[in-house]
């Protein structure tokens, strides 16, 4: 064995088993968990959690106490004797767009919902009173009353009361309520309710009471009016409550009285005929002379007619009068009743069901298997929509994804806190994240797809559509508003893999840019630049000899394959060319995905460039064909893609390239003698946006611009997208060519989301002046922060913080109580406290104050009583004033301590007294003053 062989062998063992450090740490059991472990945790942690939540929800639903809650509600109905619904309501502030953020913060509270079930106004008021006293007792400060029931009063105060639709109480608001609403429940859900608090309800009751017909008032009228017919009818009304009839009778009798002598003699006009009609609260007086001409035609109120000020004087007048008493009393009665006529009574509905009753009956029906579905409940799709659109934000997803990985790394650092973890190992973590974000979803998608295929559900159509869309995008770069740049995480999951890269050797630096098509020609038309994109065609002569470093593979349909095998030789279109270094194609392989033994390698070493008969048969027998292009770096200065790039061509151009360059410089507001690099720099410093032309509001204008105006206005925009930036680059430099393709984001997949456009010169130098995207920035900063965090063991502190937050939430109040209680005990058992208290009293009210010795618990009681009426603000004020009055004695310090503790004593008086009694015993010390 030669030295060379020995060295090779030992190097191989080290590579295989790991270096000495790794081995020792492995032996000592201090190694890090393997990469795969991280993967599994990251992959399935969240899924197991979701599954767990689902199962817990299912189990919980078994124990939901529907009957118990129903009984509780019935119990309350029995107590109040009013059919109300008790509602757990969580109000949310009406802030457009961001409601859900606040929603989480607000707490649920109980409230009462009541709708008039067809009772009369007097009963309704009584019911409201019962509700009011109940709410007062149990401190419920929200009452929903149906708008229809309350609307009878026309007072401004109702405008200040908030109203809400029932569907908003049930939280099926926003765009989706149409889907929830069943026709059965529409009548409930569209109802509007006023939200009253106790004060407003009190006011409402007093307002409603003025509308109530008082029995006593009617009896008073009965004794005063002499008309026996009316007297009879008053009693009748009191029995049957038919207001409409009663009103008509009174109106008719009033009409008779008023028009008793409708003929009178006027001094000038002679005989005059007069008629008085009663219309609502007003009187319409018409008088006509002999010839039939109008003398009077006016509308008066009752008060104007009788020439009085108000209702009270009307009654007073009636008392004094000897004749016409009935006219006055009747009109007073009429005016009294007309106030009540406005009240619309819901008659006939005797069995009224509230929405909760309705839902409960449906529930019982379903339980007895008489009904299949309860109408009015959310569907699963509604729940998911609500969850996704209302609660989940893009940022929440980001937080969940990264936060979970962060926690995992935190756990790892906790478990292995020694220095084994270094920044190189952190790259592993980075891979984990990438894997988690990109791979796991596609992995699951594949599993689900496989399952669906087995079940016979075909999604091929959809896939084809997506493919078409993708192709459309790549070959049709004319639209500036569409782009496939990687910028949105949500898009990220719905990616489409164009090709996969597999390195053939270790430590290969993979290329980033993959060109797809190029355009050496373009024309301009109505605000659109149309590039004539061209495929590059691979032939046998393009295959060079070099050591293969990596291969790019993608699936190909049989139709495309037939196009490739042009005249029995190779003629491949639509491939991905790595650009940047001197990459050359070394071989092309056709493999059947299902059977890897079926394989045709097409490289330089072949005997002939034509396919043999056997190869053709093999190709036609393949089911799923994958085409693999192997690439290597040529030692000579040659590049597959750039060597064959065509020269730029312009046909019938109205403007020269120099003119276009000047227009761009003008748009960028630079001086005329700038270099190309300076222009590129200025373009690259702009913001990134997916819709730059929309952002600049140029959509309409741009159609009427000529080419020069177009270039200058595009250059003057604040934000750009990749293809616009590339267009500008091509416009500036005559040698640059417009290229479309993909930019890989350091993983082994090229996806449709990574589609990109840039410029390149004939030497293969890439000019990519697209402004940087926020997403990349976010990603990078996240990585740097994570690296910094791992280096400084920040995860450890984060976990500590989490524990702290948990402890605070669970035990915070208890801990604070114990801590404060100890401080207080110290203070109260000290000998100076009585003096301090006397001083405090002197400070507050003046006069003579002497200290009186008390038991500690008596003291606590006394202070909480003394400061019963003090608000927090006043206590704060007191503290401030004490600070101003600086006295450098022990007593004043004691006084300040006392003031600091007052609010705590006030709140926890009973508990403190109990504790102090237990600690000090009930024996009194010597009572010295």
């Amino acid at each position, binding site marked *: 064995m030669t030295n060379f062989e020995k060295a090779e062998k030992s190097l191989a063992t080290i590579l295989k088993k790991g270096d000495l450090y790794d081995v020792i740490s492995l032996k000592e059991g201090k190694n890090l968990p393997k990469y795969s472990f991280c993967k599994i945790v990251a992959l399935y942690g969240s899924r197991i959690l979701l599954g767990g939540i689902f199962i817990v929800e299912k189990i919980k639903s078994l124990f939901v106490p529907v009957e118990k809650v129903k009984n509780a509600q019935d119990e309350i109905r029995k107590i109040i004797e009013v059919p109300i619904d008790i509602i757990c309501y969580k109000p949310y502030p009406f802030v457009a767009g961001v409601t859900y953020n606040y929603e989480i913060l607000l707490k649920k509270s109980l409230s009462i919902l009541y709708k008039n079930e067809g009772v009369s106004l007097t009963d309704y008021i009584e019911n409201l009173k019962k509700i009011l006293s109940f709410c*007062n007792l149990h401190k419920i400060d929200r009452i929903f009353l149906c708008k229809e029931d309350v609307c009878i009063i026309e007072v401004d105060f109702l405008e200040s009361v908030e109203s809400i639709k029932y569907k908003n109480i049930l939280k099926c608001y926003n765009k989706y309520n149409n889907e929830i609403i069943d026709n059965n429940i529409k009548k409930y859900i569209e109802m509007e309710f006023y939200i009253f608090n106790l004060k407003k309800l009190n006011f409402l009751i007093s307002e409603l009471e003025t509308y109530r017909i008082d029995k006593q008032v009617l009896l008073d009228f009965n004794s005063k009016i002499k008309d026996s017919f009316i007297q009879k009818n008053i009693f009748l009304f009191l029995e049957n409550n038919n207001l409409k009839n009663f009103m008509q009778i009174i109106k008719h009798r009033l009409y008779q009285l008023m028009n008793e002598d409708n003929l009178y003699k006027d001094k000038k006009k002679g005989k005059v005929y007069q008629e008085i009609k009663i219309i609502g609260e007003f009187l319409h007086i018409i008088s006509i002379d002999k010839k039939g001409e109008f003398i009077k035609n006016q509308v008066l109120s009752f008060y104007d007619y009788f020439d009085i000020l108000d209702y009270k004087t009307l009654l007073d007048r009636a008392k004094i009068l000897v004749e016409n008493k009935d006219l006055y009393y009747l009109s007073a009665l009429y005016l009294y009743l007309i106030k009540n006529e406005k009240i619309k009574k819901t008659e006939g509905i005797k069995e009224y069901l509230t929405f909760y009753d309705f839902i409960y009956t449906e529930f019982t029906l379903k339980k007895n298997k008489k009904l299949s579905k309860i109408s009015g409940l959310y569907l699963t799709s509604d729940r998911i929509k609500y969850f996704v659109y209302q609660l989940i934000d893009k940022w929440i997803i980001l937080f969940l994804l990264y936060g979970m990985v962060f926690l995992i790394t935190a756990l790892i650092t906790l478990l292995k806190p020694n220095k084994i973890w270094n920044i190189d190992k952190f790259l592993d973590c980075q891979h984990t994240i990438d894997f988690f974000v990109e791979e796991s979803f596609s992995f699951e998608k594949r599993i689900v797809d496989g399952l669906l295929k087995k079940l016979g559900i075909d999604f091929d159509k959809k896939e084809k559509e997506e493919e078409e869309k993708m192709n459309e995008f790549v070959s049709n770069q004319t639209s500036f508003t569409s782009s496939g740049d990687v910028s949105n995480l949500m898009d990220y999951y719905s990616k489409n893999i164009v090709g996969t890269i597999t390195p053939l050797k270790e430590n290969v630096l993979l290329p980033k840019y993959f060109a797809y098509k190029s355009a050496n020609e373009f024309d301009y038309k109505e605000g659109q630049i149309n590039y004539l994109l061209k495929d590059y065609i691979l032939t046998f002569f393009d295959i060079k000899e070099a050591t293969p470093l990596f291969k790019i593979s993608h699936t190909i349909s049989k139709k495309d394959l037939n196009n490739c095998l042009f005249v029995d030789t190779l003629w491949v279109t639509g491939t991905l060319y790595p650009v940047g270094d001197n990459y050359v194609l070394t071989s092309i392989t056709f493999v059947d995905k299902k059977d890897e033994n079926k394989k045709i390698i097409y490289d330089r070493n072949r005997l002939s460039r034509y396919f043999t008969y056997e190869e053709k048969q093999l190709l036609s027998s393949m089911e799923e064909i994958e085409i693999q292009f192997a690439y290597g770096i040529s030692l000579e200065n040659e590049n597959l893609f750039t060597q064959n790039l065509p020269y730029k061509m312009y046909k019938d151009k109205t403007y020269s390239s120099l003119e276009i360059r000047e227009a761009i410089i003008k748009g960028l507001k630079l001086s005329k003698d700038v270099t190309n690099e300076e222009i590129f720099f200025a373009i690259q410093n702009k913001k990134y946006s997916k819709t730059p032309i929309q952002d600049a509001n140029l959509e309409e204008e741009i159609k009427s611009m000529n080419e020069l105006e177009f270039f200058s206005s595009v250059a003057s925009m604040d934000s750009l997208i990749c293809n616009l930036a590339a267009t500008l680059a091509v416009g500036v430099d005559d040698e640059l060519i417009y290229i479309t393709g993909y930019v890989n984001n350091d993983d082994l997949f090229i996806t449709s989301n990574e589609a990109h456009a840039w410029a390149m010169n004939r030497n293969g130098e890439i000019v990519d002046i697209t402004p940087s995207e926020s997403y990349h920035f976010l990603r990078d900063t996240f990585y740097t922060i994570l690296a910094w965090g791992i280096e400084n063991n920040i995860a450890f502190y984060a976990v500590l913080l989490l524990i702290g937050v948990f402890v605070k939430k669970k035990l915070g109040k208890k801990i604070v109580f114990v801590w404060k209680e100890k401080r207080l005990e110290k203070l109260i058992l000290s000998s100076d406290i009585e003096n301090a208290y006397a001083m405090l009293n002197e400070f507050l009210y003046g006069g003579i104050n002497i200290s*009186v010795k008390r038991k500690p618990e008596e003291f606590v009681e006394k202070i909480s009583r003394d400061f019963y009426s003090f608000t927090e603000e006043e206590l704060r004020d007191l503290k401030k004033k004490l600070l101003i009055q600086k006295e450098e004695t022990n007593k004043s310090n004691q006084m300040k301590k006392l003031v600091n503790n007052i609010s705590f004593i006030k709140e926890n008086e009973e508990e403190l007294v109990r504790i102090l009694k237990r600690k000090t015993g009930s024996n009194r010390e010597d*009572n010295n003053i």
Partner: protein
Amino acid sequence: MTKEEMKYIINWYFFLRECLDKVIVGQEKAKDVIALSLLCDANSKILFMGGTGAGKTTLLNFLANSFLSEKITMIENIFPEDIQNQLKDKENMQILAINEINRTKGSTLNTLLDLFSEKYMNIGGKIYPFGDFHVVATQNIEEIAGLFTVPLAVYDRFDVSIYFDELEENERREVLFGGFKPITKMENFFKEKIYINQIIKSFSLDEASIDIIMKISHIVRYPQHEQRKVFFGTNIRGDLFLEQFAKLISIVNGHNKLLPSDVAPYLRYIYGHRVNPAVLQIGSEQMQEFFDAIEAEVASLKRGLFR
């Protein structure tokens, strides 16, 4: 009022509390009220209420034994003449102790009205005047049989009524196993009493304090009941005693002005018996809740602004 005078009165208050502490266990609030009412007025009248075995009669006997006293135990068949004959020569008595006041008819009790308020007795047209004396009476409220309703006029003559709670567990333990404690006699107190009363009478409250007393008397007269103001059958006798009481309570708390929170917890003792719960159609438990609300309202009164 000087600091020394205040200290002197506070000392006496603590002395009384100490004496009472040695006689009965627990009933802290009751002992407070007894000590305060003995101090604040030369002839205050105290009524003990409560169930059997709460310590009423023990306290009554202790007070009676400490001073020159006359003791009457009411029974159903006792005649007004019996009471008059017992008391007519005792013009120097310091305490009149009446046991079981509600075990006799109202008409018998009415003979005591003059004695309570005007300190004289009219027997067959002849007037027998008395000096200053305290009245201490007990009544049982839990038994049903053998009890008579006491006229409201008699109740009204009492300055304070004290309800004796049932003993708590630790108090029962002390009664049963606490051992013997020597009783301190209160004889010295009566020698100084005239001087103490003079000091308290000469002490005048400032305007803010008077304002508070006026507000309290209003709150007590028209308290909130089921969301409406009701007239509470109290009269000027209660307010008169409140004024005296307020003076003492502020001294005992160490200042020469009244804080609403000082007097609030004692209102139920001063006004509780002056109204018949039947007027409001409520039970005695609700009566306590009623006074809780009144006390909260009084405690929320504010004594002016900061100095």
